[in-house]
């Protein structure tokens, strides 16, 4: 049975770290909006395979089309942009991140915060774990006619990162990526600067992993999906490798240490979630256009997400990877290959299984995204496999990243409520 519904609060409650995160993300949009005055060069790139430590060596400002789409989705702007792109001939079948981005461009390239998004000086096409990236930046290049650096990151189909794969990526960095950045920026590459940035990354990654793994506590002090989206913001975008990110994750960690000490649950938009009834692992990205409604369906029922694969899309740090300043380019190569969707399905399934066991979760929920074949193709099989291995129930809902037409609140809510009932029944049967 459903818990009594709380009325949505208009005042969203946030931790200090959440405010700090928001200020950081906003500051990058401000920096982007100000390039005409600052003269900074602009590099577009993706979250998985993001080479921020390297890009910073060339004094460039990073623009992240996925983040723009997400931010536009959260602000309910993406729907119109997607339709604008479809009006220009983009198929209704393909990724809505791409269409949101193209639509934003066609509508004048005003970013989610209302500031202009400058044209790219270089497109850093890090082809990591998502085929759509390749076409996305070909589409942007077709319009902007700008320099494009392609970095082909081999997929770990046999769950191995071989010496040949690392060498291939390193050679591309040396012969393709770095020379193009030097040419566009006019700044000579300094490997010591890269090492410093990578050292900062590793420090932030330690705290980030600690934060994610804090969900092993009962009650969990964090929500590793909806809350996790805030936590990944700096490290997945323009701040990995900066002192700011190190500082942010230290602040976040202190905040969560305090919550653990007090036995507190995660902070939701309506305050602390006090009664943890269900511990869930999630696979797949969230829906952004109705994120608050989606999250509410969880916290109203006392459900907390203790581990999510989405927070690994920009790196699977919790399985041990750290950027290594002593092997700078090799480390960047390995980072790219470790991104979640660059791992094969058996490995992704094993990760989910370990999350269920290590975080003592009650089950697996897959939010299957219409736009994202990289995540979605094979998820039904992964769910069955995880159920078989762990004995915990799985559930499957379908939404989209930033296309509001594919979020059916009643259907999702109905399915979630049934799922939580199923967990209750399983518990009773096991008691």
């Amino acid at each position, binding site marked *: 049975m459903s818990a009594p519904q709380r009325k949505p609060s208009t005042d969203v409650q946030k931790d200090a770290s959440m405010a700090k995160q928001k200020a950081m993300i906003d500051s990058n949009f401000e920096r982007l909006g100000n390039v005409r005055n600052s003269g900074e060069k602009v590099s577009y790139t993706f979250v998985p395979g993001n080479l921020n430590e390297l890009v910073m060596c060339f004094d460039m400002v990073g623009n992240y089309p996925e983040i723009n789409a997400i931010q536009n989705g959260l602000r309910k702007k993406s729907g119109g942009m997607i339709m604008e792109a479809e009006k220009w001939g*983009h198929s209704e079948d393909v990724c809505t991140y791409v269409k949101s981005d193209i639509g934003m461009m066609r509508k004048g390239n005003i970013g989610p915060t209302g500031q202009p998004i400058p044209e790219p000086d270089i497109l850093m096409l890090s082809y990591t774990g998502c*085929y759509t990236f*390749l*076409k996305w930046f070909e589409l942007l290049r*077709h319009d902007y*006619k700008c320099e494009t650096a392609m970095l082909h990151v081999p997929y770990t189909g046999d769950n191995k990162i071989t010496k040949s794969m690392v060498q291939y990526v390193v050679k591309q960095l040396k012969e393709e990526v770095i020379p193009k950045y030097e040419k566009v920026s006019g700044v000579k590459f300094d490997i010591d600067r890269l090492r410093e940035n990578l050292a900062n990354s590793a420090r932030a990654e330690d705290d980030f992993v600690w934060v994610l793994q804090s969900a092993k506590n009962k009650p969990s002090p964090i929500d590793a999906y909806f809350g996790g989206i805030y936590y990944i913001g700096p490290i997945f975008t323009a701040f990995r490798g900066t002192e700011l990110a190190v500082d942010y994750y230290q602040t976040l960690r202190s905040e969560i240490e305090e919550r653990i000490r007090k036995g507190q649950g995660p902070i939701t938009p309506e305050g602390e979630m006090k009664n943890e009834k269900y511990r869930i692992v999630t696979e797949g990205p969230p829906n952004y256009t109705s994120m608050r409604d989606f999250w509410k369906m969880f916290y109203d029922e006392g459900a907390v997400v203790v581990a999510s694969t989405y927070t690994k899309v920009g790196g699977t740090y919790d399985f041990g990877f750290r950027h290594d300043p002593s092997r700078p380019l090799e480390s960047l190569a390995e980072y790219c290959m470790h991104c979640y969707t660059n791992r*094969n399905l058996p490995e992704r399934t094993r990760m989910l299984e370990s999350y269920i066991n290590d975080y003592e979760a009650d089950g697996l929920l897959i939010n299957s995204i219409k736009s994202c*074949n990289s995540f979605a193709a094979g998820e039904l099989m992964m769910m069955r496999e995880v159920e078989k291995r762990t004995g915990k129930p799985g559930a499957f809902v379908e939404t989209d990243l930033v296309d509001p037409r594919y979020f059916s609140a009643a259907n999702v809510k109905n399915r979630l409520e049934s799922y939580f009932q199923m967990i209750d029944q399983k518990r009773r049967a096991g008691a």
Partner: protein
Amino acid sequence: MATREEIVDRCQALYDDLNFTAARNWKAAKEGRHVIGFMPMYVPREIIHAAGMMPLGILGGGDQLEVIQGDAYYQSYICRIPRSTIELLLTERLDFVDGMLFPSICDVIRNLSGMWKLLRPNVYSHYFDVPQNYLKDVGGEFYIHELNVLKEDLEKIGGVTISDDDLKNSIAVYNENRRLTRELYKFRSDRPWLAPSSEVYLINRAGMLIPVEEHNQLIKDYIAAAALEDRPKRDNSRVVISGSFCEQPPLNLIKSIEMSGCYVVDDDYMLVNRWFTKEVPTDCDPMQALSYTFLEASVKMPSCFEPDEDNKGLFLVDTVKENNAEGVIFAATSFCDPALLERPILQDVLNDAHIPHISFKYAENTGQMQPIREQAGTFADSIKLWS
């Protein structure tokens, strides 16, 4: 010599046979033989052949396979080829296949490689990566390594050693196959009334299902037989089909386009049969030859990155010109990321070149042809009337 009709009938029977009897019979004819399946778009079949094995193209279940179990593995917004391929696997139609290769065509086929590992942990399955960097010392070296990994894997499966001479011999056989396929395409382009698209498709498709030596002879026989016939020439519009490189259109769709007043003078069905636009050298290191030819002489298609924006999409304009085509039909599978994401760029390039085009989507089991016939027919008429 067999008549054209007999050759086409044989190819039709191969096409209809979802139990892959020809490949089963080939395997059963001699102990120790192995069959290696592959999905579209490109795998180096030469290495499989050099191991004494038979490459078998798995192009989904078409419109005759009822997909029941396969649908339980995929959401509604994913194309049909992976679900019908899973159906083929789960209904034991692929139980004789000793290994499967999944080329880097898109995320769906890529993830299918992992599903295969989970569903058939004891059967070899391998995601076959090809370079998206086209520098010899970068992508070329990486690709040589990937080719050698495949070679070693096949050696283990077959308990054989593949020598350089074996590879060179196989490269020569496939060079001949590609040359003949190009000849077949040229024959159709020159005299499309003698080689209907549906027939050329079946001849091409047979190359997925029988040993390459047999296929070489089959192409020769077809061209010779078709050239002897006198078939009526129609006032059709000459079109190029683009976007059908993975999940295949049903044969009825190919026929429908032609019946609506179009001569198809080029297409991108089963590109593996003519992936290289020039011969692979046989007088040097064979792995290096395969690798460098891949870098320098691969056909252009959406799964491969085009490093030069100025060249983007021009292959289609060139194809139109080389074949004296009058328009392009974009026929892509529903939910096909490579084809559908690429399409707006290609349309722009065609617009710049003043080449008319239309587009529609299909699935391998599309049954209703009337809308497609009307659309293609109107396109053909508009070309005749206005271009």
